[in-house]
């Protein structure tokens, strides 16, 4: 990660008149974000503490004592851990391989498609692939004399299917970030390691991995945040089922707040979800902007 050599001068101090201009430039954005993002959050916070008898923690208590919430929380954590770890491993391997190929740009372009196409579309593509009667995967398994599972109707396989689909959608992001980081590795440490007779495993362990650490941190936080909010693929593929097997916090909050109209409960639940996300964001912003802000 090469910081540009024309090291940018820190922000300028301006005269009073220009400072006002700078503030005015940012103002429309600030107002809009305040109106549609900050105000609703405040609204949500107030709502989540509102009960019939005034303000209290009752909504939070009832959620925390609810079994379906703790089950879903655990489920979401499981999704997050499994998906992020698999993505990191596969992403790093593919990025390292791409780095050794000359026509990597064409591959990279094709790899990015799932990242930009709607998750709804991708989930449908997989739903059709996993269809137990006419799906391609089931068909291939039958051809190999293996009885295909009922992918989306069996609790365990449904969970695995969601993991596969989500991983399929977002691993390209991991590949791209790792690959860009690999492309900007400085050459000289490798040359000196070569002279010292380091093996490629040693070079990977002591040079590449440490250099990739910032990229790793960014991927880890961004992907953790995203998977923790997982919603689209579950809605299309399983609707949270069978039973509760693939329920996620976003979907549960949606069901509670919108489908069943319990706005206070839904608000409280979605705010509880925000706490770990908040921590991850702070880490992420620090990692990306370091002391630049």
């Amino acid at each position: 990660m090469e910081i540009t050599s024309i090291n940018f001068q820190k922000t300028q101090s301006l005269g009073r008149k220009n400072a006002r201009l700078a503030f005015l430039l940012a103002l429309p954005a600030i107002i809009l974000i305040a109106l549609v993002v900050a105000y609703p959050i405040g609204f949500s916070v107030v709502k989540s503490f509102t009960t019939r008898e005034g303000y209290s923690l009752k909504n939070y208590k009832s959620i925390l004592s609810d079994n379906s919430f703790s089950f879903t929380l655990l489920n979401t954590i499981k999704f997050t851990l499994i998906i992020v770890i698999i993505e990191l491993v596969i992403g790093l391997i593919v990025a390292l391989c791409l780095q050794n190929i000359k026509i990597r740009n064409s591959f990279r372009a094709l790899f990015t498609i799932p990242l930009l196409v709607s998750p709804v579309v991708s989930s449908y593509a997989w739903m059709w692939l996993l269809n137990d009667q006419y799906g391609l995967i089931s068909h291939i398994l039958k051809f190999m004399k293996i009885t295909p599972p009922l992918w989306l109707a069996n609790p365990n396989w449904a969970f695995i299917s969601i993991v596969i689909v989500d991983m399929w959608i977002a691993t390209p992001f991991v590949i791209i970030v790792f690959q860009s980081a690999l492309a900007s590795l400085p050459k000289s440490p490798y040359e000196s390691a070569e002279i010292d007779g380091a093996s490629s495993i040693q070079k990977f362990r002591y040079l590449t991995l440490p250099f990739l650490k910032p990229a790793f941190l960014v991927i880890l936080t961004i992907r953790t945040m995203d998977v923790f909010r997982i919603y689209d693929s579950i809605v299309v593929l399983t609707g949270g089922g069978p039973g509760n097997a693939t329920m996620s916090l976003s979907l549960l909050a949606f069901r509670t707040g919108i489908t069943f109209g319990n706005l206070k409960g839904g608000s409280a639940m979605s705010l509880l979800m925000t706490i770990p996300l908040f921590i991850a964001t702070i880490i992420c912003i620090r990692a990306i902007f370091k002391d630049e802000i």
Partner: protein
Amino acid sequence: MRFNSPKIKTSKVITIFLVWLIVIGYLLFVIIPYGWLFITSLKESSEVIRLPLEFLPDKLYLKNYFEVLAINNLNNSKALSINISSAFINTLIVAFISTFIALLIGLPASYSFAKYKFWGRKSLLITTLTTRMFPVIALAIPIFQIILKIGLYDNKIGLILVYTSLTLPFTIWVMYSYFRDVPTELEDAAKIDGCNFFKMFIHVILPISKPGIIATFILTLIYPWNELLLNSILSASKKSQTLAYALVQYNTGQQIYWGHLSAAVIATSLPVVILTLLLQRYVIQGLTLGAVKE
């Protein structure tokens, strides 16, 4: 490679073989789900559910596409057939207008954040960036009530307002890191030439930031194009339904008409795929900007 011993040679061959195996394998993994959907979209409904399964269609059948994209009367929708023409048009309108406004407001803001020192800058910037992390559902419940109150429920204007604001933090996030790297000397030179801020911004800063702006444009456009949760809350009819939500509604839990559905899905993602491939340099730059500085 000074020592051309056979051992090193074979290990090198194995490495190259493994590298290609993994890359090609991953490519197939990416392509097959869409490819299979594409092939299905070219089959007649009866052929789609005919066993034993045949890989290729009997003949090229394009009627699925005509049927799902036909512009028909909004009130005259048959319950079973899939038609996404109105959702397609809504998506185009909502996505392009909200992206345009987000850039119009976001570009000056991110430049100001990146280059100038003013009161509250740091905390405002951090607040802006943290809004990105909120789960959409945490915003959706109150946004739903607000939109209802101001009478923009089931209205494209309401969607544009919401999507513009939600993409703004992202726009600022990406362009902030981009503008940081624009040398300040350029601005000084323009000022010496007697340019005021807006002249300087439009004629000097924006042109040299074109790659970053294109990248931000695509990635901002994608959000309303693909967004599901908010649209499912904020729209009630074909008047304001966008693509993702319209497509989800065809998943009835009963029989899904895969011939139609696959055509609808392929047709609506084709613009995104073409855009991705044409502008891939910018897309990748945008995705890694803020994550990796090259």
